[in-house]
């Protein structure tokens, strides 16, 4: 059941590819770092050097309430809420693998593989490869629970959307603004035609440090081009039925508001919790697959820091 859930969020092919890339980077970086002299070139023109060898591994044990906008899907078993994760972060000479530590589960969900192109005092430009959207398939959705089975059954599997992006990051005193412009592809559609699109993802995060708490307030706005949106919530002629008429989706936006808090329990354990509210363009509701254009996700758990 859990495997199917994972498959729904990350198809096996994509998962294996990501695991391969991650491990290759992890072990090659560790091997290279053992021989490295840790020398960094510093010049007046480049006040901030690229990241040296650093690593961190975190085990995450979180409970996540994660409803979908697809056909009223939400968890209906306790096990569905428990989403453990292994978060690996590593950097070496500008290359980095960066997990999303505020996010549990999905094994590699949110993990970014990147290279720092340009690093300055208060801004930088990176090349990024990451999964921008999670996939799903009808069986896993039905098993996840709560949805309209007739509406979902027989849908072709939707893959995760992998994107190659250029990211601009601007650092403020206690805040960070990022802008990704990504060329993205989820793979082939129902007619074996390769789907390609654009994703423009912006995010602003503000840190409030209160006593031993880190509280992050975040807001994001993301644009998904028509091809990408249609891949997920469009209904092709091959999939149409009485319950779901054929539908071609438009491009659209997703706005997000989130709050996340972290508090140390000991030198190894951290308590963390967060809430994210997402709202999508109204037009997504025109799809017969979509039940609502808003979703609130809640996470609470602990992390073990190695």
């Amino acid at each position, binding site marked *: 059941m859990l495997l199917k859930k994972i498959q729904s969020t990350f198809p096996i092919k994509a998962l294996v590819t990501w695991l391969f890339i991650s491990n290759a980077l992890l072990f090659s970086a560790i091997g290279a770092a053992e021989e490295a002299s840790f020398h960094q070139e510093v010049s007046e023109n480049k006040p901030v050097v690229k990241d040296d060898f650093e690593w961190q591994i975190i085990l995450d044990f979180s409970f996540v309430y994660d409803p979908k906008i697809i056909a009223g899907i939400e968890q209906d078993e306790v096990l569905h809420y428990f989403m453990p994760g292994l978060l690996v972060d590593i950097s070496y000479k500008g290359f980095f693998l960066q997990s999303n530590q505020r996010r549990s589960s999905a094994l590699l969900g949110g993990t970014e593989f990147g290279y720092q192109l340009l690093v300055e005092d208060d801004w930088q430009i990176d090349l990024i490869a990451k999964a921008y959207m999670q996939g799903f398939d009808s069986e896993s959705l039905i098993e996840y629970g709560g949805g309209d089975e007739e509406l979902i059954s027989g849908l072709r599997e939707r893959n995760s959307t992998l994107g190659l992006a250029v990211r601009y990051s601007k650092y403020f005193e206690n805040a960070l603004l990022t802008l990704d412009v990504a060329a993205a592809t989820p793979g082939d559609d129902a007619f074996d035609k390769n789907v390609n699109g654009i994703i423009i993802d912006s*995010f602003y995060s503000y840190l409030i440090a209160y006593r031993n708490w880190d509280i992050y307030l975040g807001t994001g706005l993301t644009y998904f081009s028509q091809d990408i949106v249609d891949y997920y919530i469009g209904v092709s002629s091959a999939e149409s039925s009485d319950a779901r008429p054929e539908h071609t989706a438009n491009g659209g936006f997703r706005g997000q508001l989130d709050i996340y808090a972290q508090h140390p329990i000991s030198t190894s354990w951290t308590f963390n919790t967060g809430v994210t509210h997402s709202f999508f363009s109204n037009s997504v509701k025109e799809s017969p697959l979509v039940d609502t254009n808003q979703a609130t996700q809640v996470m609470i758990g602990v992390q073990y820091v190695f």
Partner: protein
Amino acid sequence: MYSNVVKGVATLRALLLFGLLIMTQASANETQGLQATEAVFTALPEQCVTLRQGRACFATVELQWQSASKYNFCLYQEGKKKQLGCWQDNNHIQIKVEFESNKSVKYQLRTLTDDKVLAETQVEVSWQHKNTSRKRRWRLF
């Protein structure tokens, strides 16, 4: 032959004397230890943990001291002149102090008359993540 015996006895004496000295020293240490444990000064929690190295750690720390003898004394945070409290003819205190520091802090009890340290205890500051140059951006979902 005789000289060898004398030498042997002398060596044995020296060894015994050395052993006796060590035992005396150990005994003295034990006595000091007893005297030290007679007055117990503790801090709870002993450790304050922050998320990141270098960041100030906050805690409400309970300091407790108990001694067989009564003293006139004041409580100080090491490195600061202002006392956190003073007591007269007392052998037991229990006080809560607000801790805020990015490094370990010692608390001392000093006599009023000659500023002699009666006892001291420490609150250690630890962290989970080493302070690195890495600037990060994480997002929940």
